[in-house]
């Protein structure tokens, strides 16, 4: 049977000592945070985590987050990249779960399927003091059994679990009724970690360098570039591999290309949906094949590796002599190097200039 400690009337030293004792024995402790009551188990102990998973009964499709006391402790368990560092230094401790790539040092069942780990530094000194005294992270998942009421008081928890579940608890730190705050916000820092310009490894011929001074001029340049390659339309796939930072004008360039292809639709961003497709209306008279080529506007912003491009059927589409505009193409530079003989690939690099509306655009291809 668990022990309940009333936080208000117990010296902190004593609470910490008791909590650490339970954690060391692979027990479960229920503790208050700035959001809701959490349940803690030693994150590095398989026995403790198995016990916790048993307590949570039916798991949602969500991994467990863990609490650390500092950035230093976090760095022992995850790769803290630039985005994560920004979050740690500006917003932690606080109601935020920062997801990073795990170093694989926690017990099985905590990490996500893709090997990431969510970390909290609760804005509740008693909890970070316990973690500090324990010397290792503890789980910081909410103390309710899955699908049950969010726990703002000890009664919220105890009234909604079975005797068997109660038997799994080692210690309850009771801080009374917590103010009703939302649970922590989860952010993933592993997506688009760094857009590396890996173009150094491949050999390209620079064909054109031009500055544009408005989105319209960028569009017009799109038309101009396409016209250089239009003879391939219908006979070979034509790929515009676009690179440029956020807001550079990759979509503007795509709009120009779509215009020469006679596409009337509004060309808006495919970021969320990954890929948008449009029927090409202008096909050369000499084009005999029954199937007209399609214009695919692809955005790899949300993709993490090239196998995901494969899974949206990219390679089959290349075989069918279509036209592509691919944003953030530089994420998969090697892939384009591999297919350079199967398609006409035009690299379009768009760079911001000092003047807000002006861009430096460089066009290159593989013709050496």
């Amino acid at each position, binding site marked *: 049977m668990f022990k309940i400690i009333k936080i208000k009337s117990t010296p902190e030293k004593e609470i910490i000592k008791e909590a650490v004792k339970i954690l060391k024995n692979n027990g479960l402790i229920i503790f208050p945070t700035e959001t809701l009551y959490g349940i803690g188990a030693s994150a590095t102990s398989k026995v403790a985590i198995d016990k916790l998973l048993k307590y949570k009964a039916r798991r949602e499709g969500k991994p467990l987050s863990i609490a650390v006391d500092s950035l230093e402790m976090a760095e022992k368990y995850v790769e803290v990249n630039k985005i994560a560092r920004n979050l740690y230094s500006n917003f932690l401790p606080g109601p935020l779960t920062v997801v990073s790539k795990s170093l694989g040092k926690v017990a099985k069942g905590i990490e996500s399927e893709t090997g990431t780990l969510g970390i909290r530094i609760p804005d509740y000194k008693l909890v970070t003091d316990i973690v500090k005294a324990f010397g290792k992270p503890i789980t910081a998942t909410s103390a309710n059994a899955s699908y049950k009421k969010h726990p703002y008081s000890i009664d919220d928890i105890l009234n909604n679990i079975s005797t068997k579940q109660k038997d799994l608890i080692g210690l309850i730190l009771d801080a009374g009724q917590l103010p009703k705050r939302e649970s922590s916000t*989860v952010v993933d820092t592993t997506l688009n970690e760094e857009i590396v310009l890996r173009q150094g490894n491949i050999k390209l011929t620079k064909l054109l360098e031009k500055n544009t001074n408005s989105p319209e001029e960028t569009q017009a340049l799109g038309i101009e570039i396409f016209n250089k390659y239009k003879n391939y339309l219908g006979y070979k796939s034509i790929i515009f591999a676009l690179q440029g930072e956020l807001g550079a004008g990759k979509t503007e360039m795509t709009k120009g290309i779509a215009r020469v292809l006679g596409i009337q639709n509004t060309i808006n961003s495919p970021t969320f949906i990954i890929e948008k497709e449009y029927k090409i209306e202008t096909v050369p008279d000499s084009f005999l094949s029954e199937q007209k080529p399609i214009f695919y506007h692809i955005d790899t912003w949300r993709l993490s590796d090239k196998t995901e491009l494969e899974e949206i059927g990219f390679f089959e589409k290349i075989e069918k002599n279509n036209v592509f505009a691919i944003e953030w193409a530089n994420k998969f530079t090697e892939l384009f190097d591999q297919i350079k003989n199967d398609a006409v690939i035009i690299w379009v690099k768009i760079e911001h200039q000092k003047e807000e509306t002006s861009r430096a655009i460089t066009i290159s291809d593989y013709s050496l």
Partner: protein
Amino acid sequence: MKILAIDTSCDETSVAVTSNDNIISNKISSQIEIHKKWGGVVPSIARRMHEENIDLVVKETLAGAKVKLSDINVFAVTKGPGLSIALEVGIKKIKELAKEYNKPVVAVNHMEGHIYSALSHNKNGNPKIKYAFPFLALLVSGGHTEIVLVKEFGKYEILGRTLDDAVGEAYDKVARMLELGYPGGPMIEKLAKSGDATRFPLPVPMTKTRTTDMSYSGLKTAVLYLTQKVFTEDLKPKEKTQIIYDISASFQKSAIDALMIKTKIALEDIAKEYKVKDLILAGGVSANMTLRKKFRSTFGKNYRIHFPTDKKLFGDNAGMIGVAAYHNALRNNFVDIESLTRDPNLSL
């Protein structure tokens, strides 16, 4: 009328059982323990992922609704808009089920589903909703931003839409610029609460001329230049934190103001003759409470305001598809199973 609906338009595999316009059970793959991931954070766009999920989600949904496949009267599926390869998985499954149980199929436009997310009831028939055609819907998500006039069921006119980025996408990209991680919406909304929107005023997009079309690309670029200007090397840590709060606040203000201004123009210039009484705000970004509050304070005096009636109905889900399918089925809008195919660019 019991309907089993499937939505696989993008990241989520979702299945629902509905009875008329009541949602009995509405399951979304990220909320079931199939693939343990940080809910909806990393896109699992692959066909494989949907294929692996679909049978289990169907099973869980039926169990949740306490019905058997043989109890289903109509099968419904999202036909588009969405990612081709993802849509195909749902369509294939629905064809299979409809053939096996010899029941008719309704093909639903995903955006029509979002409209009905605000007109859906739970299994007990709550909440009660009073609305009348014609009405106006502002649909906001990661992939869409559009103002739709709903003249009557099935008769839609898009009065305005984004010419480049969707508003949800703008949140994500601004969050990337501020190095806040993904997804950006909940984080920016949270940080904006501690920020001063007047410190770094940002332009409200496309408001120089009186148009109902929208653009978020320019606002995104404006934030980019702002960050380059204000994040200097010599900033003290606390100053940097405050700047992030303030930029979040001013970005959110411009993004939301644009939606309000455009909706107002649509109501005043185009929808006026239709005597609209009801306004709907739906789609993933309507989960943003600041946006919902602003929508209500701007339009609540003159219109009845409707939001998705359950937390699960903000983002992509099959419950809303089932309810939209019910209204289609009432009008005998069934499709030929053999020729049913995805339409990734489908528009209202």
